[in-house]
């Protein structure tokens, strides 16, 4: 049997994704240079398409998703549309956030706090919000500042006064909107207890009103597993 014939016999399995990885790679390599086999694949794809539709239609009346699924889909699509339709702008807020990171690295969190009170900051602060974080009862010496662009998805966190963690742990930032909790990222602190984080939140910061920091495993957690050590809110 020729190579071509051997490949041809694998095509139905290929379309069903039932081949071993090596066989699948062989077929893909062959298809790039064989129009006849590509037509065969297209024909078998039509079969699996009809099987999928036939099976789905036979099952349809017995099952229905929850009504809120539609809302989730439309909301996600709206977010995607909003992101795509953003006009290019100087992104001065992002530039400012980047500048804030530089300042944080140079000056530390305390000076960032002072800087946000400066006239220069006020002149450019349209859409920017700052959140002060304070330590809980066991971490009263710790404090922090968050600067975010409410209409963007980037922000900056700086903290001071936190103890260094072992290699298996990280500090994790949490953002809270109603009952929804989202991670803002992981960070560590240096020997002086100072740390910073560039925060990125898909979908933007709008609506988030409470922020906290907890100690989590090094790879992070889906939700806070420990008691918050820093809290703040709008």
């Amino acid at each position, binding site marked *: 049997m020729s190579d071509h014939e051997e490949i041809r*016999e*694998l095509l*139905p*399995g290929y*379309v*069903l*994704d*039932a*081949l*071993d*990885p090596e066989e*699948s*790679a062989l077929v*893909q*390599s062959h298809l790039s240079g064989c129009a006849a086999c590509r037509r065969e*694949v*297209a*024909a*078998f*794809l*039509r*079969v*699996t*398409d*009809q*099987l*999928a*539709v*036939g*099976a*789905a*239609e*036979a*099952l*349809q*009346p*017995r*099952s*229905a*998703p*929850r009504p809120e*699924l*539609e809302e*989730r*889909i*439309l909301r*996600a*699509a*709206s977010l*995607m*549309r909003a992101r*795509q*339709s953003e006009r290019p702008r100087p992104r001065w807020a992002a530039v400012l956030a980047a500048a804030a990171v530089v300042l944080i690295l140079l000056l530390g969190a305390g000076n960032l706090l002072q800087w946000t009170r400066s006239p220069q900051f006020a002149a450019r602060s349209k859409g920017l919000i700052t959140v002060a974080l304070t330590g809980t009862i066991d971490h009263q010496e710790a404090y922090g500042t968050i600067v975010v662009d409410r209409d963007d998805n980037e922000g900056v966190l700086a903290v001071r006064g936190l103890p260094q963690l072992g290699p298996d742990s990280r500090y994790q930032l949490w953002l809270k909107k109603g009952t929804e909790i989202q991670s803002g990222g992981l960070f560590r602190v240096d020997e002086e207890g100072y740390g910073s984080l560039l925060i990125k939140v898909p979908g933007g910061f709008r609506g988030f009103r409470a922020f906290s920091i907890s100690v989590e495993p090094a790879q992070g957690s889906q939700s806070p597993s420990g008691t918050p050590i820093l809290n703040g809110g709008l």
Partner: protein
Amino acid sequence: MEKVRPESPPAVTCSTVPSSPDYIRIMPYGEPDDTELMLRMARREIGALRELYARHGRLVYGLALRIIADPETAEEICQDVFLRAWEKADTYRREKAQVRTWLARIARNRSIDVLRRRGSQDSRARDAWEELKSAATESGVDPAAPVETGEARQRVLRAVRSLPPEQRETLSLAFFEGWTHRQIAEATGEPLGTVKSRIRAAMARLRELLRDDE
């Protein structure tokens, strides 16, 4: 080399006037067909996505649920499918595949991916087509679906039921459970070559029987 599943953009066919005596779906004057909805989605009209979901959401969800057997995950897959349609709407072009078919294809592929990732493939139904036959008999017709899809569904189920039982069962394990030839051979105790030839024969037979639908 990474496996690539062909997921070409949906083809467009114009809606035909229903002619079956089974039931009639009256399309209000001016209601867009799926082609028009894809074009509107490419223009980022949320209303078009809402309508597309209204027409095909249960189909996509039902197929995902059959494969995954977990309602929450099936909803996530359904969401993935429609957001993909939204994302890819601007690459739409006319080819030989309807939007409904394209959505079902993505749903099946995503569901199999999840099943494999979870390692939760099993032989819940060695012949899932029998289960579908019961479901199709009990359910009657879905008034939300165009009449020609009811006929197409029956034709597909008839074609599958015409296969010899061993071909039908082997195909069911590959199609609904995402099993490879090798996994099917190990689970059933059949030689690998036998499994491959059954899949080949089943697909070739179905291709012949369903050719007029192309």
